[in-house]
């Protein structure tokens, strides 16, 4: 059952061949069988899942169903879920039972998608390996010695291992696409503002954007249709007409101009990753596309700019964790300052504290212009590079990450090396563009993702390119042997 596409599941649910309760129970059984070792879930919610599945079955029987009705889902533990613990991978929120639903959760609940549980992640989404979680690292289903990527590593791992058919993620600097790449699944970061941030625990608000993690591009298109749309409760939500992200699925790629940035194939790129990506680009080209060289000259400035701006925003966003209204409070505070300082020092992990301190410093008197303003200027230069590149191409293709998944523990003591792993994904977040990762082979026996970046609002086109690629390849259908 866990090898079906979303459309096939929908057909079986509607023909009466299976019920949502059976489908949901199938995934719950797989979670109990496999997750002890994988550690992809922080919380599993079997009772909630079954009661939602029963309601979904009634909806289907009443003829009141949508395409995703009855299909279970796992939510990254950054999405607030009313009545369910929402930890954001942090000790700070270990006792936090969300008092309301994120907008995305409200939308998916309304459709009738049973919640299997909440997935593990880097603490407060700050990381590229899911190792910084208070609940311990998630393993990569393809190789338990490897990280699943991050920060949405739990969500990526559950899709790769077949523990859920769909999962939500968020992408601030690559946190949907990089774990999708490392786990051999499909993930898309939509245009900034396409999906509501309401009820998603904030990390860096001008970058944070939610997206689906799925097996195939087609599944992502269906899920994005359900997630995206204007929400007045998010002040940066885009007021646009509802888009049908499946609208272009099936269109020919004839005449597609594929931009390949010379700068993306330089030093530091693993040769096996490069080989897989070049082969994939050629294969897409063979479907009628034309490869053109483009340039993104400021690419190397994106990582430092991001690591000024995102921590600066984080230092403001995370000031709310003060031990007063919710979350962790230290024992026996001596005075108010002691309450603040010890609650934060004991409640946050090392990487989160580091980013808050870096952010506070970058915003402090005397450094604001040199760091924060400079980084914002670079942000515009990086965005303008993309604008110029899109004058001569329709999409840009390259690697998602310079390597396939690294080993657990390999980079955890070297932050800067971990940061530089996101050099291909971060520029896209600075610019706010949509980008897709689709499985494109293996390097060093671990999955590799092809990165497809498009102009603003080109999600439907990107998903169709991914879909066409998945018609001629079967990387997305492959599963790690022990989870088949």
């Amino acid at each position, binding site marked *: 059952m866990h090898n079906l596409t979303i459309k096939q599941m929908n057909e079986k649910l509607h023909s009466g061949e299976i019920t949502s309760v059976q489908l949901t129970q199938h995934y719950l059984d797989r979670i109990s069988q496999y997750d002890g070792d994988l550690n992809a879930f922080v919380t599993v919610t079997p009772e909630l899942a079954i009661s939602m599945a029963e309601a979904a079955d009634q909806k289907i029987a009443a003829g009141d169903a949508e395409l995703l009705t009855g299909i279970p889902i796992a939510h990254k533990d950054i999405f607030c879920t009313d009545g369910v613990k929402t930890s954001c991978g942090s000790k700070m929120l270990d006792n*936090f*039972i969300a*008092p309301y639903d994120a907008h995305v959760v409200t939308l998916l609940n309304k459709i009738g998608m049973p919640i299997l549980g909440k997935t593990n992640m880097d603490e407060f989404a700050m990381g590229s390996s899911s190792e910084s979680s208070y609940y311990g690292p998630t393993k990569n289903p393809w190789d338990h010695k490897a990280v699943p990527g991050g920060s949405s590593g739990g969500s990526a791992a559950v899709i790769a291992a077949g523990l859920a058919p769909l999962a939500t993620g968020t992408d601030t600097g690559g946190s949907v696409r990089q774990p999708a790449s490392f786990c051999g699944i499909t993930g898309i970061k939509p245009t*900034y*503002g396409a999906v509501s941030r309401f009820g998603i625990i904030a990390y860096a608000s*001008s970058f944070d954007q939610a997206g689906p993690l799925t097996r195939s591009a087609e599944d992502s298109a269906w899920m994005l249709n359900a997630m995206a749309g204007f929400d*007045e409760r998010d002040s*940066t939500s*885009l007021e646009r007409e509802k888009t049908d992200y499946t609208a272009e699925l099936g269109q020919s790629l004839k005449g597609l101009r594929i931009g390949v940035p010379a700068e993306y194939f330089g030093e530091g790129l693993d040769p096996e990753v490069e080989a897989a990506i070049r082969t994939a680009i050629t294969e897409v080209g063979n479907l009628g596309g034309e490869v053109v060289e483009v340039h993104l000259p*400021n690419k190397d*400035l994106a*990582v*430092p*700019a991001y*690591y*000024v701006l995102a921590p600066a925003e984080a*230092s403001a966003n995370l*000031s709310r964790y*003060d*031990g*007063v*209204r*919710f979350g962790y*409070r230290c024992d026996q505070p001596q*005075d*108010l*300052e002691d*309450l*603040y*300082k*010890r609650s*934060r*020092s004991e409640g*946050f992990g090392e990487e989160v*504290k*580091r980013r*808050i*301190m*870096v952010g506070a*410093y*970058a915003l*402090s008197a005397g450094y604001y212009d040199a*760091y924060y303003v*400079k*980084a*914002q*200027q*670079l*942000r*515009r*230069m990086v*965005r303008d590079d993309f604008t110029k590149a899109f004058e001569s191409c329709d999409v840009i293709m390259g690697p998602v990450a310079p390597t396939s998944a690294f080993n657990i523990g390999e980079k955890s003591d070297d*932050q*800067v090396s971990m*940061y530089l792993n996101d050099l291909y994904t971060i520029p896209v977040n*600075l*610019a*706010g*563009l949509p980008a897709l990762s689709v499985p494109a082979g293996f390097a060093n026996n671990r999955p590799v993702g092809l990165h497809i970046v498009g102009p*603003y609002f080109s999600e439907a086109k990107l998903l169709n390119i991914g879909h066409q690629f998945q018609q001629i390849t079967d990387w997305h259908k492959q599963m790690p042997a022990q989870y088949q």
Partner: protein
Amino acid sequence: MSLGKTEVEYISRLAQIEVREEEVDGVAAKLSNILDLFTQMEAADTRGVEPMSHPLDAVQRFRADVVTEVDQHEKLQAIAPSVTQAHYLVPQVIE
């Protein structure tokens, strides 16, 4: 760029994060590594470039100044560490 003890203490105060005496050197070293990354930005010529805070250069939306939230303090305070009579309790501030 190398941070010293004074700077770490200053940052600790700004961030309201306690850095214990024995942690200062380690924190200084790790923060210094990150600040070294920032120095790469210096090489870029950004004269005349307007700082960008929103990818689509959009501005914040306004809404009518009307009440949209209902009172649900009991639900929201149910998860608070310490509450009395609908007020959050903190250590005594004024003697």
